[in-house]
């Protein structure tokens, strides 16, 4: 725990703790959790992870992005020894939350645990109740940071099931610019529960790109809240790529708070076996003249399940809103399922909101076309799957980070999509 933490931290922890004690773990009777059963998490009673696990250094080394500033968070604690701040440019400050929280000049008190509502996000409340350490990234107004920032979040109990509550706060000053990637990782086969919260405050005219690379152990539970506020003319882009975890739940929420703000919210998720990928996104158009673009793509094999709930709220004042949402999923087996639910709540009358959802199998005519030119069925399928995800990958503008995410995704495709079982025998009519 933050020793001698400022009073405001103690207060927020206590509030969150009380809220979680009152509400408890969500159940499937709640609308927001209708398809995702978190009872296995609640029942596990994981102890809080402590200390430095054996594999941390190797795990961090395995995902190193050349040229990036690296921040390691191990079991919820900022790990200075595994971080590499050598490339840190001027105008950006990185602080461990434990120490940084004492510094009133950074805006931490103003923003920490203030970008989301603890009532609406039980797991974020739980994270906040255990708020101890983590990382704050503060970009000074007007500074354009060219060096990407890579946060590596490791969770491991060295084989013993544990829980960690990693925490990241990004504050981008007016007209600043920064690109951040967050890789969630654990040792293959490990059981653990990673309950992450990332808050992002995008100042006026600032541009923040946040890439999420969720590649937890296939036996892990991964819950992440990514919540952002965007001020006038600010731009926030979230690109989430999820290939790991037995049960994943992402709550990604963006509030467009100032006129002319823009949000991109994209993602690709991939699962096989009986894994579950649940993505809940929320876009809150609170003021006029904001734009948002959302594309999610899912690839599901085996008996995998996915949930996509895309909420768009257009408040009464938010005239001239332009919001577009697309969710597409490919089911590669008869037993894979998805519950896809666009949820548009529009209270303004002069807006443009479109949404589309499509669930299907691989296009067999396209498969035949590729095969008729000489590609094997497996090669043809890989080409179509890469193309399917490609639309989202193309949105990654930071080459160093894009390369790694692309490689993770494509190796997961090979791992999860077994050509002999994944596809329905191609009978056509």
């Amino acid at each position, binding site marked *: 725990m933050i020793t001698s933490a400022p009073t405001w931290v103690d207060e927020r922890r206590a509030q969150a703790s009380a809220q979680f004690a009152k509400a408890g773990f969500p159940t499937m009777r709640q609308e927001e959790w209708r398809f995702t059963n978190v009872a296995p998490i609640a029942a596990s009673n994981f102890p809080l992870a402590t200390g430095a696990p054996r594999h941390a250094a190797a795990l961090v080394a395995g995902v190193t992005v050349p040229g990036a500033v690296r921040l390691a968070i191990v079991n919820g604690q900022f790990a200075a020894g595994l971080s590499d701040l050598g490339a840190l440019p001027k105008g950006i400050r990185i602080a461990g939350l434990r120490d940084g929280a004492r510094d009133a000049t950074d805006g931490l008190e103003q923003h920490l645990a203030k970008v989301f509502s603890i009532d609406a996000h039980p797991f974020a409340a739980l994270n906040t109740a255990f708020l101890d350490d983590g990382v704050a990234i503060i970009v000074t107004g007007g500074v354009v940071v060219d060096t990407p920032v890579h946060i590596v979040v490791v969770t491991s109990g060295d084989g013993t099931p544990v829980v960690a509550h990693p925490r990241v706060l990004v504050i981008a000053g007016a007209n600043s610019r920064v690109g951040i990637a967050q890789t969630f990782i654990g040792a293959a086969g490990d059981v653990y529960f990673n309950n992450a919260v990332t808050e992002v405050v995008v100042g006026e005219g600032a541009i923040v790109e946040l890439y999420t690379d969720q590649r937890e152990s296939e036996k892990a539970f991964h819950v992440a809240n990514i919540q952002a506020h965007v001020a006038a003319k600010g731009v926030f882009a979230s690109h989430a790529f999820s290939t790991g975890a037995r049960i994943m739940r992402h709550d990604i929420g963006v509030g467009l708070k100032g006129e002319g703000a823009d949000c991109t919210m994209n993602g690709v998720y991939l699962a096989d076996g009986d894994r579950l990928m649940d993505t809940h996104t929320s876009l809150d158009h609170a003021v006029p003249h904001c734009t948002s673009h959302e594309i999610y793509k899912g690839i599901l094999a085996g008996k995998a399940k996915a949930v996509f709930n895309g909420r768009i709220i257009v408040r009464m004042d938010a005239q001239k809103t332009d919001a577009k949402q697309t969710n597409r999923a490919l089911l590669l087996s008869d037993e894979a399922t998805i519950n896809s639910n666009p949820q548009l709540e529009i209270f303004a009358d002069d807006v443009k909101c479109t949404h589309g959802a499509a669930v299907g199998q691989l296009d067999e005519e396209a498969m035949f076309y590729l095969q*008729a030119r000489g590609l094997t069925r497996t090669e043809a399928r890989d*080409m179509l799957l890469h193309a399917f995800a490609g639309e989202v990958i193309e949105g990654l503008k930071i080459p160093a980070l894009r390369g790694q995410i692309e490689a993770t995704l494509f190796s997961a495709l090979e791992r999860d999509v077994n050509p002999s079982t994944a596809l329905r025998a191609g009978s056509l009519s």
Partner: protein
Amino acid sequence: MLDVKNLKVRVDDKEILHGITLSVKAGEVHAIMGPNGSGKSTFARALAGHPGYEVTGGQVTYKGRDLLDMDADERAREGVFMAFQYPVEIPGVNNAYFLKAALNAKRKHQGLEELDAMDFMALMKEKAKILDVDEKMLQRSVNEGFSGGEKKRNEIFHMAVLEPSLAVLDETDSGLDIDALRIVSQGVNAMRSPDRAFIVVTHYQRLLNYIVPDFVHVLSDGVLVRSGGRELALELEEKGYSWLETSGAGART
């Protein structure tokens, strides 16, 4: 090169081809003509190995091997090429990237070294020039947003790069204006050689003014009702297909 004996093909539980017999030697160009619904495209797709076209009888021997025993991709790597009547749009798959993969799949199959990016680019540029293919088309997604003419030209471009032994052109002339038709035909004619054969499926004789066939076969209601030389196509041009309705029934028995 190709021996088709009494080929019967079913689509959706309905027999479309009732027994086609046709022999194609290397170096020859055969035209298959016939009215809409006669089974021309079914014949082309069955040769290419489309899984929706079920062969219920007969044999097809290609270069001494049982063609029907091979999947579509193996047929392609063995040198069978079909230019699609309706080329499929594949968003996100780069045309040049796909063609390189296809060519190298074939080269690997033949025991040849795969082409690297440089050599492949040089080859593409050479072929693109012959067919007057805009190089921008090569960097777009396969057929996506192509006009009808561009799609057909892209098919012939694929053929030129893949250099098949047996090329089946399925109504390549449909949707082409006269200039495009001339360019596409020039591309095909440039590829005519003693060790390559063509089966040209078409509704109209017009194409055969440019690609002059050695043999013309008339398909009606799933059977070949007449075979002859080029003059048969001219006769069809003059008389249309209506005469088939009387003679076609007799020919089937």
